[in-house]
């Protein structure tokens, strides 16, 4: 299946655009990182800042996996495969945070007191 330049759909854009696209995304990622770094100095409530940071990180993450790692143009199975690992890892991490944060798992007294 040879890539014909002119009439290709969005999936297989002309080769020149891929180069430009990558550079544009890299610029975007740099900007997002810059926003993250200044965000921590904003005078807002912590939960707003944390949410902003998480959202920005997720956006960067998604851009890298879908564009740099080519998932957008690959067979969906690759995305599903990675998503399994991601969801399992993220889900286990979340459950661990809950388990250690659960109030009734804290000892009533601590040896450190």
């Amino acid at each position: 299946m040879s890539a014909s330049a002119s009439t290709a759909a969005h999936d297989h854009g002309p080769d020149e655009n891929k180069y430009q696209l990558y550079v544009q995304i890299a610029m975007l990622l740099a900007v997002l990182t810059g926003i993250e770094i200044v965000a921590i100095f904003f005078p807002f409530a912590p939960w707003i800042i944390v949410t902003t940071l998480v959202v920005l990180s997720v956006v960067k993450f998604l851009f890298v996996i879908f564009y740099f790692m080519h998932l957008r143009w690959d067979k969906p199975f690759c995305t599903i495969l990675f998503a399994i690992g991601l969801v399992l890892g993220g889900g286990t991490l979340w459950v661990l945070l809950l388990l250690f944060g659960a109030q009734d798992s804290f000892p009533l007294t601590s040896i450190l007191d």
Partner: protein
Amino acid sequence: MSMDASVKTHFTGSEAPAPTRAAVFWRPTAKTGFVSWLTTVDHKKIGFLYGVFALFFFLVGGFEALLIRIQLAVPNNDFLTAQRYNELFTMHGTTMIFLAVMPLSAAFFNYIMPLQIGARDVAFPRLNAFSLWTFVAGAIVINLGWFMPDGAPDGGWFGYAPLTSKQFSPDHSIDTWVMGLQLLGVASIAASLNFIVTIINLRAPGMTMMRLPVFTWMTLVTAFLIVLSFPAITIALVELMMDRLFGTSFFEVSNGGMPILWQHLFWIFGHPEVYILILPAMGIISEILPTFSRKPLFGYPIVVFSGATIGFLGFAVWSHHMFTTGMGTVATAAFALATMAIAVPTGVKIFNWIGTLWGGHLMMRTPMMFALGFVWMFMMGGFSGIMHSAAPADAQQQDSYFVVAHFHYVLIGGSIFALLAGIHYWFPLMFGRKVSEFWGKLSFWVIFAGFNITFFPMHFLGLNGMPRRTFTYDENLGWNAPNFIATVGAMILGLGIFVYFAVMVYTYFRGEKVKRDYWDGRTLEWSLPSPPPEYNFAVTPTVHARDAWWYEKEHKEEIAKEKAEHAKEDAAHGGIHMPFQSIYPFVTSVGILIGAIGVCAVDYGHKLPVALAGGAIMLIGIYLWAMEGNEGYHIQPNEEDLKS
């Protein structure tokens, strides 16, 4: 194991390597002899090696168990010291799980799965060899303690912190446990990545996912479980090793560390691990029951779906091993619920196996005996399991012999029975000989009796309060008779295993030879000669239905025409493409072995040079492996194979 000596090997001109290859890139071509085993990349030979090592360690683990039972036969016994006892139950568990059941399953994954999907080998043959040799390296490291003054690992197969910290386990024994497990983890993950790519990408034309034999499906689910759960124990072991070697505080309470974290990380791995141990067994049973009932598997889609569900839910139940650690009511209830849920797909499978038997023309041969034993014994293990899932009841059962009874019913009555069944079942295919029915059945009954006599009393021992992992007990606790009975049962079980092994060894050398498709099987591996030629299929089959071989037997003319066409195409391409053998997977594993020994077994002051030397050998092995190229060579299939 005889390789087909009549195969003609030739190197076609355009594929010939460059006129002068550096000496370091010699191509091993030996097909027999010691070097051929070290350099093999053939999935059948690798599977055979896994099997041989697994059966050896099965005997080692069994011997360790017999020593344990002798110690516990009578109260206040002094056959073993407490220290020795701790080493034995630790190594019995570790050996049986990681060096016996898992590699025995791997033997079947390797040998049978590519044949069932119509492939010539796995996707990455050299990586396959690397997995095998790294497994051997891990087995060596973990058993080093027997030969060292520090002794074998003694912290239990689950190595709870802070017992395994430097403070309470100052010598090298726990280090060898940690590094051995890391090596075994690397081997398992590499092999599983290979199997996943093979099953997804190397299926014969027409072999859709829903036409795969159930054993292959279970191989796939198990491989996913391995690649997703082993990282958790890898990290737990890394953190433990950092604490022991470099003074970090991951599990060091005085610096704010929480030992309970070890339990979480370990069981996040440990629970999927038990499904890793049982799913291949369920896959084997799902092949044997249809063959010996002369009926297709009942409810194939739901059996497959249940297997996948068990795998997935298996990641959500780990804290049921921690019900008594004070996690709080919400967490405890959540995990109890999830554990109960997982019983549903398991039960569904059992009903489907019964449905397979129902109305079938049952052939009560030895593999069928073991398979029926599996269904019943695994069910009993499941009953005690569901009793554990109720957290309040578990508060009494935890850390008692009730748990020991439970997991031995599912692991011996389940996994081992199925693996022993699989050996009997596929023996004629792999070695072209049949096992005597009389001796096979005799070994089954002795094993069955011995197993139940050993472990059934343990349910009562547990409910009557006998704790696990204690080297002796006092005489007035009411535990004397059941312990004695259990020991007698263990001896009978040992005798049964001995008969089983003796029969196998005898049959391997002197058993009656048989032709192909000895059991009139349903799946593609039975379409091959016994034993299969090096290239597996003379012509890659085209699959038209589930139970592909059964379809071929029912539609002989159609298949014969197809085969003739494909044979012409293959010949036009220059023949069958085979991978080159290589020494570099072995070299890489040797490097890893030396490196691991440097980290765990050598004294401070000498660790670094040994570890670095091992690391250097490993890197050289990897580099040469990457550079030697994988062009392979071409083979013409045998005339008889083309005509079959």
